[in-house]
């Protein structure tokens, strides 16, 4: 019975801690949701409220003022995110796998070679020149996908996940005469689902949230991804109030404050759809079962 009591204690602790943290994360989001449906004036005067004093969908009207454009932007974002995530995951997992192989002589050196890029950077300008002047990707979807494919972080995390796969699997497969790529594709990948799901999630999120690439590379409006389009709406709303635009004849006065919140809500959409899907891959015992089978 001792074991059971400790389980109860553990469960009580667990539920309390997780519930408290969850509330801390949920409350601000609720406030944003409520704010996005509030009247602009109320937000400026009183700040956040649990429920809107005056219900208003003005902010959403501003966001969706041009529905055709928003839908196009969704298309671009989804396209870029899917392609980027799949391709990025493939290259990341290959690299991670190679670096996790203990018999691969240069793994430490190459790990360092990759990690080094997170330490030093030449800054924005040379990177921009590379992509625009040498690769000629200005206003091209390639500029949205390729430069964000890999990150040293993801590769090293991947390597770490794959390190926990027993060497014996590779060894026995080799004895069976399987090629390196086959081992990776047929054996390692299926055993790495939690890792793949994690890195895939991170990649997906970074593509989904990326407005900066579009900001500097994309000049055609129909190629704007969703995040950039939304940030553009926000930035214009903010600039309309500053003195630079003093002489901009603006009879379009978007509700700048509630707009920020509506944008946050619109942007967070994917997690609600994507995350439960990813969670399916966080299943314990997958690894061991496969090895035994």
């Amino acid at each position, binding site marked *: 019975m001792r074991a059971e009591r400790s389980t109860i204690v553990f469960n009580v602790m667990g539920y309390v801690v997780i519930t408290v943290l969850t509330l801390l994360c949920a409350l601000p989001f609720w406030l944003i949701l409520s704010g996005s449906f509030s009247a602009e004036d109320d937000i400026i005067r009183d700040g956040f409220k649990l429920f809107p004093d005056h219900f208003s969908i003005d902010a959403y009207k501003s966001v969706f003022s041009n529905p055709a454009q928003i839908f196009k932007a969704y298309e671009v974002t989804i396209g870029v995110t899917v392609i980027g995530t799949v391709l990025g995951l493939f290259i990341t997992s290959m690299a991670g796998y190679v670096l996790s192989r203990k018999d691969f002589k240069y793994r430490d050196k190459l790990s360092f070679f990759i990690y080094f890029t997170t330490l030093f950077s030449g800054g924005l300008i040379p990177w921009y020149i590379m992509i625009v002047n040498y690769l000629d990707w200005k206003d091209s979807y390639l500029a949205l996908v390729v430069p964000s494919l890999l990150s040293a972080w993801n590769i090293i995390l991947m390597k770490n996940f794959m390190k926990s796969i027993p060497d014996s699997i590779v060894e026995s497969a080799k004895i069976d005469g399987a090629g390196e790529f086959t081992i*990776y594709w047929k054996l390692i990948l299926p055993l790495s689902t939690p890792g793949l799901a994690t890195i895939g999630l991170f990649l997906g999120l970074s593509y989904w*949230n990326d407005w900066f690439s579009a900001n500097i590379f994309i000049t055609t409006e129909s190629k704007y991804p969703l995040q950039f389009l939304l940030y553009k709406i926000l930035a214009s709303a903010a600039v309309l109030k500053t003195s630079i635009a003093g002489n901009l004849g603006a009879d379009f006065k978007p509700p700048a404050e509630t707009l920020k919140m509506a944008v946050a809500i619109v942007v967070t959409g994917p997690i609600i759809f994507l995350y439960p899907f990813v969670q399916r891959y966080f299943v314990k015992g997958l690894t061991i079962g496969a090895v035994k089978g």
Partner: protein
Amino acid sequence: MSGFFKELAKNKVLFLMILPALLFFIVFSYIPMVGVYYAFTNFSFDGGLFGSEFVGLANFKFLFESGALYNLTKNTVLYNLAFIFIGNILQLVCAVFLSELAGKWFKKTTQSIMFLPFFISFVLVGAFVYNLFNFENGVINSLLRQLGMQPYDFYLHTAPWKYIIVFFNVWKGLGYGTVIYLAAIMGISDEYHEAAKIDGANIFKRIRYITIPLLRPTFVLLILLSLGGILKGQFDLFWQIVGNNGMLYDATDIIDTYVYRSLAINFDIGMGTAAGLFQSFFGFVLVVTVNWIVRKVQKDYALF
């Protein structure tokens, strides 16, 4: 060198598999890295990167001459250490709980919700902070007044801001980091736990002796990965919360905000790059040192 070619011939498939990644980093990181040279020049559009006048270390002067560098470095390092350690430990705790609790629906929902702050921009975080702490009608001061207590003007005191900033940073990264640990836990074979259960180990013992040790490499790895950026700050976090409030800088100024202020009026590519290079160099030395120590202690945990 012949060793290298032998290795190449032996493992050519492996080399081919990692080649795309290497090419990527050469094209998008190593070649653009020539830009660090900006730090040593007086940039002009006529000359471009290599035609501009070479000025040696002159661009670094503004960092060192002010005398603020010590305090800035201290603040930046301490903030980052707090972010890294508190963040990672909390994420680890959450992951352990989430992996052991039974309620399926509860787990899924809470996990999703914990991810939400990741999507909240720092602009909105700044708005929250303002709404919570401002003197006139902030939530906390309104509460204090209602309780008949003296209101407290947060914006005139430096003390609370360290905690506020650390709290919001940890809060924002909670869901994201938890996923990593959760994935690592999923990689742990169930056999260990089953065996321990048969031996009569209770849940605390199992976590203490099985889960935690097996998560240690991931923990060390994440710390090591973060250490390289120890001098780089989350500019947006500090900027949106503190803004131009010089009164709070003793406690809240980090290198990024300092450089921003120094160059806001008269931006200079050379000086901006110089500051970045200083941060990089510091991080580089630190991470190489710590990695070397980790390697001595436990070779497997090292980053490279």
